[in-house]
Structures are given as structure tokens and as C-alpha cells.
């Protein structure tokens, strides 16, 4: 799945009712121990290692902020985050906008005029890419876009459009755009499903009232549909944006960050430093920066959501 739903669900804070709540704490012990071993200790270690020089064997050598100063002067680092900006467009912005329109049309138009079954079938079809393992979607598109034996170029050639055939993933000019296209294909179904489930909440009378008032489809779309599913809108945007910051699998399978770093992303950049170059300190600095960025982003999103809920 792309994003994990629910990350932005509100914390249910409720004070009081501390009646007889002794004896429950013991149930937290396994969870706490496991989280310390798998999450807390590795996280602290990575942050520590990011201030050292280490090849993965022997003792790490403390170097202070050296990795970070090197990082901020590294063109590849800035390039990898620049690529993420484009990938956010492809994985979060475009699927959200398309998904919103599709969900509204399916729910409000197709469902009404052709029956819910049509809407459900179309929705499931759009959702299909989401259920495939990321690595498998990479294989499918890696083959379709392959320069010599790939399906796309073969189809273009047989249609007499051979001049349009490109080395889609191997040419630095096109590689990132090809990856972006694949990601739109992969992500589209998630917002469609989310928004359609949100639309269930809308009272049909609202639409009828709008119709009576002579509202156009576009007005209804903006004033009712978008306004009512704002919670889903936030969840989709935050989960897909975070998913694009974390993207690894597709890039690994499609391009391995190449050609000549044209599709390099932070997670792959970190992976290369960890496991190919044995620059563990530097790799840790990259992943620490990525983590900080994700958490800041999540906090900003939650703040925005809370403010919007209050107004």
C-alpha cells in the first residue's frame, strides 16, 4: 500500500476516569520492550553514528558535524531532495486532484445515472495497482519501458511512431518523468477509494437542496463535495506526501537511482552509502535529515488540520 491510513487520525485525549485502571500497565511491557529493541535503540544509534565516521567495522570515530556540513555541500543530496519535490507532485498532488474529480464523478454522476455497480467496478479497477507489491510494479514497468525489448517502444514502432521511442528509463532527460508517470499510475486508486468512502457521509438532501437553488455541478463540487470530505483530503495528502519522501522500492527496481543520479532519492542515497560505499556515518546523516523532515511535515499537517477543524 502506499500510505498507511490513519496516521493522521486525531489522538483521543480524554482526562479522568482513572477508576480501577491499575493492573493494565503490565500489558504494555511486551510492547515497550519490543519497541525499545527495534525502534528506540536503532534510532538513537543512527543519530549517534551520523556524528561519526564509520565503515561498519571497528569503532566509529567521532567527527562532530562533519557529515552534515559535507551533506549540505553535496550536489547529490540537493538533487535527491529536488527529485522528491517532483515525486510529491506525482505521488501526492496529481493523484489527489485526479482522485477527487474521479471520486466525485463516480459517486455523484455514474452512481446516480448508471447504478452503484458501475461506480464500484470502476473504483476497484483504479485501485488495482495499489494491491501489487511495489517490486512487482517496478518489474512490470521496467519491462514495458525497456529500450530494446520493451512493449511501449515496440508498440510505437509498429504504429509508425518509431521516432517517439525513447530510452525511457535510461536517458537522464526522461528517466525521472517516466518514474513520475509510473507513480501516478500506482497511486491514483488510493485517493479514489478514500474519497468515495468519505462521500458516503454526505446527506443526499444537501445535493438536492443545491439543485433546487440552481447550483452548477462545479459549485456543488466545491461547496459540498470538497468541503465535506476535508478530513479524507488531509489524510490522503499527508500519507501520500510522506510515502513520496520514503520512496525506495520503485526507484531501486526501475532505475537504481540512475542514469547518472537522474532519479536519485534520499532513501536510495542513504542505502548506497550504507551498503555499497560503507560510509555508514554519512548514510546515517542522510536518513536523520530525512526523518526530521518527515516529522516536521507531519506536525505541520496536523496543525493545519486542527486549525481548519476549529474554524
Amino acid at each position, binding site marked *: 500500500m502506499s500510505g498507511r491510513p490513519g*496516521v493522521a*487520525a486525531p489522538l483521543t485525549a480524554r482526562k479522568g476516569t482513572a477508576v480501577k485502571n491499575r493492573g493494565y500497565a503490565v500489558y504494555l511491557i511486551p510492547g515497550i520492550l519490543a519497541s525499545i529493541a527495534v525502534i528506540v535503540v*536503532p534510532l538513537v544509534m543512527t543519530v549517534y553514528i551520523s556524528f561519526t565516521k564509520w565503515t561498519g567495522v571497528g569503532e566509529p570515530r567521532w567527527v562532530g558535524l562533519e557529515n552534515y556540513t559535507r551533506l549540505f555541500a553535496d550536489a547529490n543530496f540537493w538533487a535527491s531532495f529536488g527529485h522528491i519535490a517532483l515525486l510529491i507532485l506525482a505521488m501526492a498532488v496529481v493523484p489527489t486532484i485526479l482522485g477527487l474529480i474521479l471520486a466525485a464523478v463516480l*459517486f455523484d454522476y455514474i452512481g446516480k445515472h448508471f447504478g452503484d455497480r458501475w461506480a464500484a467496478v470502476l473504483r476497484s479497477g483504479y485501485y488495482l495497482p495499489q494491491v501489487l507489491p511495489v517490486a512487482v510494479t517496478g518489474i512490470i514497468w521496467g519491462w514495458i519501458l525497456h529500450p530494446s525489448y520493451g512493449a511501449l517502444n515496440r508498440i510505437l514502432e509498429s504504429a509508425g511512431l518509431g521516432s517517439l521511442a525513447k530510452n525511457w528509463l535510461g536517458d537522464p532527460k526522461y528517466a525521472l518523468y517516466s518514474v513520475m508517470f509510473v507513480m501516478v499510475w500506482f497511486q491514483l486508486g488510493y485517493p479514489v477509494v478514500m474519497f468515495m468512502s468519505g462521500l458516503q457521509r454526505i446527506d443526499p438532501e444537501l445535493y438536492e437542496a443545491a439543485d433546487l437553488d440552481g447550483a452548477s455541478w462545479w459549485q456543488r463540487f466545491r461547496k459540498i463535495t470538497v468541503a465535506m470530505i476535508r478530513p479524507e483530503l488531509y489524510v490522503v495528502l499527508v500519507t501520500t506526501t510522506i510515502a513520496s519522501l520514503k520512496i525506495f522500492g520503485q526507484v531501486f527496481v526501475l532505475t537504481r537511482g540512475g542514469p547518472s543520479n537522474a532519479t536519485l532519492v534520499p532513501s536510495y542515497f542513504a542505502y548506497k552509502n550504507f551498503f555499497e560505499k560503507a560510509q555508514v556515518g554519512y548514510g546515517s546523516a542522510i536518513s536523520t535529515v530525512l526523518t526530521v523532515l518527515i516529522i516536521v511535515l507531519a506536525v505541520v499537517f496536523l496543525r493545519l488540520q486542527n486549525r481548519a477543524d476549529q474554524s
Partner: protein
Amino acid sequence: MTVTTARAPRRTVKATERKSFRDRHPTRFLILTVLLVLLLLMVAPLLVVAVNAFKSPADYASNGPLSIPGHLYWDGIVDFWNRVNFGLKLWNSFITSLVVAVLGVILSVFNAYALGIGKVKGRIWFLVFFLVANLLPQEVLVYPLYYLSKQLGLYDSLWSIIIIFTVIQSAFGTYLLTSVYGEFPKELLEAAAIDGAGKWRALWRVVVPVSRPTLAVLFTFFFIWTWNEFFLPLIFLISNDNQTVPVALGVLQGDRMMDATTTSASALIGILPAMVFFLIFQRTLTRGIAAGAIK
């Protein structure tokens, strides 16, 4: 397909359907056509894969990717299956995902029992912790986990992946389930207490059975997420015998022995298990995506 949409009374649906076919409106069919073309574009890659997985390399070379195979050519699939010992990879993926889903649900239930129902002190901080754990990219955990698992002799073993994903998935499960248990009916717990049930019995006799639908959603999510994971298994499962399906397929990309038909054969056998899960779990899944998002 999923019928969550069919909440509206059946009668009205039928009525509108009938009406629509009486007064056919050109723009209506135009919009439907656009949506169907989009559907075709979305599933086209999978169709192309399915068609070419059954072609001989010669057939592909002469007829291209869009022709229907002259005859069903199974050798590509069979060869690939045997070459990567795919049965074993399926088993590795299955057993890992199953154990993670079961243990992950149990761990989430324990955590949420203490936080959601027990409302233990500092629960907000625990929830913040699980929320942040949810957001962490695996890259920030991977090297220490790799290093520590080597020290413990768990490297290149399915157990390493099982332990790590149980904890990672339960961070999400705890978060979701705590908000569900926060609304758990007090009367049921009080009734159990009056019957003399302790906390342990109340958990298994009351809380777990009542929240079964949510637990089913969590189980489904954990299973499929673990099945689809790529990054950590790629790093931890290096020997051929331990690879999971995505890793086995992913590392073969760019292999010199891969050609058009072998690649589509490999993609097809990677797609099929996912499709099977999708069909088995689709109801739980669509319900769960919605449930997880807005409680």
C-alpha cells in the same frame, strides 16, 4: 466488487438505473466512456503482462507485445519458476506475513488494552511515540538493525524480518486500536468484573471477541503490507533460500538472462498472489481503508 456503496435503499438504485436507460443522454455516455478508457489504461500494463507471459520468445520477436499468443506457451513461466525456486519464495513470504500478522495483532491488542481501556498514566506520550514510530522511514533504523542482527546471529534469517515487522506494524495497530478501545462500552467490562473475571479473562472473553471486525482489518493490513515489503527483506534476506517473493523478483531486474517474455512471466507470477489476496480480502480492505482513515 465491493458493495460498501450500496448503502442506499436498493429500490431507489434500481429506479434510477431504469430511468437512465430510458432517457439516454449523450454526455452521460461520453463521461462513462472517458472513465472506461481510463480504466483500460490502468489495467493495460497488467493485461500486457498476462498476454506476453504465455508467448514464446520467437512469437514475441515476430508479433510484438499486443498480439494474442499463437498458442499457450508455458515454458517461460515454468522455467522461471524453477530457476528461482519460486515455490520456496512463496512459502517464505507466506509464513513471514502470517506470523507477523498474528503477532502484530496480539501485540497491538495488548498495547491498546492498556492505553485505550486501561488509560494508563502517560498514555498520550505513548500514543505520540507510536505515532512517530509510524512515521519513521525504515532507512533511519536499518543500519543498526543490520548490525545488531549480525551480532545476535539473526542476520539472513526470516526471524529477523518477523521480529522487526511485528513491531513496526503493531505501532500502527496500537495507534488505530487505542482510539477504537477508547470508546469501548464500559458496561461490558463491568459485567465481566461482576462475574469475577480478571483483566486477563476480560481481555480474551470480552474485548477481543467484541472488537473482532477491527482485528480482522488489522490482520489483513499487516499480512498484505508484510507481503509487499521490499526494503528490509532486500537487506536482511541475502541468501537465495530465504528470499521473499518481492526480493526474488526485484533483484532479478536487469539480469542478463531476462528477456521480454521471461520478464512478463516473472511479473505475472508476482501479480497472481497479490490478486488472490485482493479477491479474498477486498471487503475487509475497502472497509478498513475507510475505517483507518477516519475513525
